[in-house]
């Protein structure tokens, strides 16, 4: 088996962090997953038609894209998320 040390060696610093939030949109409580990478964020939320995903340097803009199919605008996203740690 060929090993690639760059990929297989345990990282001294974790390369990502998962933050789980629950958001209530139009009365429905939904899990919102935010993954923080060194260069930005990926957000995903479950919708009736499957998971919706958004990615951006900004956690708010990433979450806004993920929440868009649920009809959530930027101001609602900012309010739902509250303060976020820095990438």
């Amino acid at each position, binding site marked *: 088996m060929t090993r690639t040390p760059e990929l297989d060696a345990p990282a001294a610093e974790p390369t990502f962090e998962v933050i789980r939030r629950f958001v209530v949109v139009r009365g429905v409580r939904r899990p919102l997953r935010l993954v923080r990478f060194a260069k*930005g964020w990926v957000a995903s939320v479950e919708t009736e038609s499957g998971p919706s995903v958004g990615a*951006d*340097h*900004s956690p708010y803009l990433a979450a806004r894209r993920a929440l868009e199919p649920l009809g959530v605008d930027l101001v609602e996203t*900012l*309010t739902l998320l509250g303060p*976020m740690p820095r*990438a």
Partner: protein
Amino acid sequence: MTVTDPRVEAGGRAASRLSALDSALAQFDRAADHLQLAPETRAILRVPKREWTVNFPVTMDDGRVEVLTGYRVQHNVSRGPAKGGIRFHPAADLDEVRALAMWMTWKCALVDVPFGGAKGGVTIDPRALSQGELQRVTRRFATELQGIIGPETDIPAPDVGTNAQVMAWLMDTVSMHAGYTVPGVVTGKPVDLGGSEGRADATGMGVMFTAERALAELGVSLDGATVAVQGFGNVGEAAARLIHERGGRLVAITDVGGGVANPDGLDPGRLLAHLKETGSIAGAPGTQPIDNPALLALDVDLLVLAALEGQVTGANAHTVRARVLAEGANGPVTPDADPILAERGVVTVPDILCNAGGVIVSYFEWVQNLQSFAWPADEVAERLRLVIGRAYDQVAEMRDAQGVDARLAAHAIAVGRVAEAQQIRGRYP
């Protein structure tokens, strides 16, 4: 015709090392940091998209030819045509116009009207001009902006030192060049020329609505509240009059020539009559004199700043004792003053929210011009109340949910919306 100039020179502005552009950039950086904007988005939004400097000759009444300098800056047009006033002022310069254009971008985005941000200026004192000279300056500047301004590209409006008549000359000049009437090229026109009912009072009305909301959050009614107003020009006079009509007690007002105070209350109608007669409210019958530093330090429920930028700074913020500070002017509080005011418990209604009534009704005027349909004054006022009220609610929700101050909340919403528009549109080519 009187070109009102709300500059407040009595007592001078408080010394600050921060220019208007420094303040605008510091506020943008704070919002961009909070949103964690991508570096490339940040780089785009931090600078104006387009800017012009024009030098043009004007023949004065005595036959002399003066070469004047004017500016037009379009900060961002991601959300729609550029929108912003034109000021005639001896201190107008490119950096100031850049700052004001950037604030216009955020203001339009915050109240969610489909405009980008722009601003213009001519470095001249309009009070020193005859009507003929003012008209020639306006028409020549409009000609220099040929191809830049237009109903679908960039729509000017009145600002410091300009008014509805100046907008009428601008519109007429553009129309003469086009060969047909182009009412939508400017807003803030006289109503007889397609201006909107309520436009003249719109900024002051927005100040009154938002200040009333801020006071209500503190459990204070505007009816019976004590109020001090800095500036008695287009914004300050309307705000003072409308606050007075709502039962607010105006205890002090300053303008370019001085200030007046009366603890039992001032009548803004009488002050306006005195202003028209003498050129200043100073010395109006039944009042005591007051200067700017004393006005800023009054123990009042509401302090309205409706003059120019940089009035409350790190050097004098510790003197402010008002419960609510409403920013009727653009950038009247510098960033170094914000933490001092917050520490003193002063609630600030940030400028891009507080004085957005003007651009909201400008948007209404633009829409009415495009539709060739005029709305009655009460409909304009009601729509203004709804739009600025919704923006106030959104800022308050964001402020409370994120635990930030109202200025950061307002800027984060606005910058976020523009960043979103920028990203959705993509990059050309």
